[in-house]
């Protein structure tokens, strides 16, 4: 590592993928910090959604009502955006939501590794959504799914141009979908790290960066939840296009 004595801030170091049990090589099967924090994410999901609802109480405990609120929140979102027939895909969308939510929140623990700050992770999620939704559109509607790009409300002369624009915007979706999440996470954590570096170097004056750090942390907490929400609701919007391509 390039740690030297003195004023060195390495905001990107926190994103490095390193093997958990020593060694340098990162093979596809090597247990790394990615593995650890993904496992913790899975554990948190299990704790909230399974352990908390074990009581099956008619009058819920606090954790149970948190699990129920999460359930109701995503369920309502799907129903609002895609309509009744989107509810079939509830488990998939719920998986995406709780995964991103907990990965984001766990990443805010000091010294944590934020799995969702990596484009590999978010691109996989976004591509999975993109490919699934596109395939679903063709399976449900056949070739008439393509009419989504042929805007019948527009004048005929404009339609080819609009079709090209629509097509481009359709294929840009997974790019923006994935970079939005990874970019938000990465930028926030890098800024936090910079503030923390200043706090360590300024002596008494470090109250200022520490205050900034606290404010930034609160903001990042908000961002963590909002980005999970944004990713999920965009997934719902794309799903709606596949379910009802003809507006």
């Amino acid at each position, binding site marked *: 590592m390039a740690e030297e004595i003195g004023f060195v801030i390495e905001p990107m170091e926190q994103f*490095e993928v390193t093997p958990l049990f020593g060694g340098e*090589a990162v093979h*596809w099967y090597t247990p790394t910090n990615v593995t650890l924090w993904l496992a913790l994410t899975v554990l948190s999901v299990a704790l909230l959604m399974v352990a908390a609802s074990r009581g099956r109480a008619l009058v819920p405990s606090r954790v149970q009502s948190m699990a129920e609120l999460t359930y109701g929140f995503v369920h309502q979102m799907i129903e609002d955006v895609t309509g009744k027939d989107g509810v079939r895909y509830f488990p998939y969308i719920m998986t995406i939501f709780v995964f991103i939510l907990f990965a984001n929140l766990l990443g805010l623990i000091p010294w944590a590794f934020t799995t969702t700050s990596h484009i590999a992770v978010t691109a996989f999620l976004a591509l999975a959504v993109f490919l699934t939704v596109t395939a679903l559109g063709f399976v449900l509607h056949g070739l008439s799914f393509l009419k989504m790009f042929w805007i019948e409300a527009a004048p005929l002369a404009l339609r080819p141009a609009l079709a090209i624009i629509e097509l481009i915007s359709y294929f840009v979706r997974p790019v923006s979908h994935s970079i939005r999440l990874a970019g938000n996470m990465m930028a926030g954590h890098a800024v936090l790290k910079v503030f923390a570096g200043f706090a360590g170097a300024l002596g008494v004056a470090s109250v200022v960066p520490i205050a900034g750090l606290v404010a930034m942390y609160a903001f990042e907490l908000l961002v963590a939840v909002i980005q999970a929400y944004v990713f999920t609701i965009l997934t719902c919007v794309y799903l709606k296009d596949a379910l009802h391509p003809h507006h």
Partner: protein
Amino acid sequence: METEPNGAETGMPQLDFATFPNQLFWLVIALVVIYLILSRVALPRIGTVLAERSGTITNDLAAAEELKTKAAEAEKAYEQALADARAEANKIIDRAKAEMRAELDVAIAKADSEIAAKQEESEKRIAEIRASAQDTVQEVARDTTAAVLSAMGSEADSATIDAAVKARASRGDAA
């Protein structure tokens, strides 16, 4: 900037493609596990609990509604009973009043007739007394007239005296 073991120079670990297979491998496992946990255990369970709760709430509300209706019915029955009782009481009072009035009327009528009878008797007695008094007066008048006439030296027959006294008496009656 540092040189990675595989020789690629990266500022952003996110762009170190050598770690992609590792990340994707573990990510897929994590997502599958989360999906299985949610779809097999968590979501059906929470869904059941929510459905049960809304069912219970609906049932409770229906039961409450029913009880409310019953209460309203009971109140109506109570009011009805009260009104009936009141009407009955009024009827009894009216009947009692009528009976009392009838009895009273009978009693008054009886008393009236008794009073009338007594009055009649009294009047009869008074008439008798008056008649006998008149007779007595005429006799005395006759005797007195005869005595006065004989004392004055004129003789009158008793028939004339009788007629004169009668005429006088009837005039006196009229007067």
